[in-house]
């Protein structure tokens, strides 16, 4: 399988910085805003965004959520929780920015929204992803995007702080 690097580490850093600015701008500040990374790929991005937001403006809470137990493909393929959810703040009334590395079918985000609902009733939920690769199977759209990346359905997109690789 051939590998193609589409974003370099600097591109990822710049996209993260821009998304941090956009999150502050959209919410007219950071009042009540919290970041929640979706396990496992969204967690590093949520903390990177949190660090950027803290550098630009002020520190906001960052948590993580594991949506495995809410997936709709349990029993169709092995679904194993990868890590324990960590939400150390009150979800009720918060403006939550869900963070994931890649937005693909939208099923993970659907599961994460259901999981979030069991912690409380947020004021609103926004979605930030580093890569939107298309092929949505549910009516879900991101609010903040690092890069729109046209892919075919059978390609694999890997995202780390060291860049984005299609294989």
């Amino acid at each position: 399988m051939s590998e193609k690097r589409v974003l370099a580490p600097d591109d990822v850093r710049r996209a993260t910085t821009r998304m941090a600015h956009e999150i502050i701008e959209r919410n007219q500040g950071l009042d009540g805003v919290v970041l929640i990374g979706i396990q496992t790929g969204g967690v590093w991005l949520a903390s990177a965004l949190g660090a950027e937001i803290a550098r630009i403006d002020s520190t906001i809470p960052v948590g993580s959520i594991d949506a495995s137990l809410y997936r709709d493909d349990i029993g169709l393929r092995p679904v194993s929780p990868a890590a324990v959810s960590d939400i150390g703040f009150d979800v009720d009334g918060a403006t939550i920015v869900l963070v994931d590395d890649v937005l693909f079918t939208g099923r993970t985000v659907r599961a994460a929204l259901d999981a979030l609902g069991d912690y409380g009733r947020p004021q609103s939920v926004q979605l930030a992803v580093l890569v939107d690769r298309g092929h949505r199977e549910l009516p879900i759209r991101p609010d903040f995007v690092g890069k729109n990346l046209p892919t075919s359905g059978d390609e694999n997109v890997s995202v780390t702080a060291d860049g984005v690789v299609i294989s």
Partner: protein
Amino acid sequence: MSRSLLSIDELGVAGIQRILELADTMAEVNRRPNPKVPALRGKTVCSVFFEDSTRTRLSFETAAKRLSADTMTFAVSQSSLNKGESLRDTIETIAAMGVDAFVIRHASTGAPWLVDGWTTASVVNAGDGWHAHPTQALLDVYTVRTALNRTGGFEGLRVAVVGDIKHSRVARSTTAAFKALGADVIWVAPTTLLPPVVGETATDRLDDVIGGGDGVDVLYMLRMQNERMTEALVPNLREYTTRFGLTPERAARLAPQTLVMHPGPVNRGVEIAVDLGELPGSVINQQVTNGISVRMAVLYDLLSANPDSTSDIEINDAVAAARMEQP
């Protein structure tokens, strides 16, 4: 083939670790205001208990419900078993109603293995005879793992299992689980209450293994089964308590970090003759709480990744369809 949990040996070290890590996720669910997830929607878990049980049966039912599975309870005393229906016919009848997992407790060693051979549903051994009680063992090691924050294994941990080892499936399974994770286990019992063949280190002097700097890290007290008294295996309960019970004098000698465990139900005044409130190392209530998380992990592990399983109903349908096709 469906997957089943029948014994610690068959689960293996990797399986134990997998369940323990899954139990961390389930424990987080249980700490929420609404401790329920939709993971096993549409699955049905049937408990079939041929022996009395409070905590194990309730624990399994709670675990299944918190994963959104449906639960059925088979009440042996009100069943057609009293009309002479065999265990096999009973199991096959229930399975034909569409059951994904049986949780079974039976007085006969090996019964869960038989049931596993009769059904394509998963089977969880909730205790068979004197033989095995794997979910109790898993919740025991999970309790020590969380209480001592030993996620990497139990290398160097010293565990004493005290009491009626001979008749105890808990002793056998929990010993196997502790040893699989690297702990050293010593059995403490009068020789009349040890199995005829002892594979473990054993002693009849409880005072040698507790207290001071060289005492054990975990003191696991077994229930002294009153029904054993009729068999004259110990002279009387008071003498048993004097030699093998956790008396106030022994509690005072325990190092404060020693964990005290018990599978329940506790015979107060016999194996534990002090107020549990005065035992700072007691994790007996945590064992009960953790039991739900561990059983959620077991049910999820068996029922979540089963893409190739065929239910008994589908098999019956397939058999019926095959018969229809024949002239």
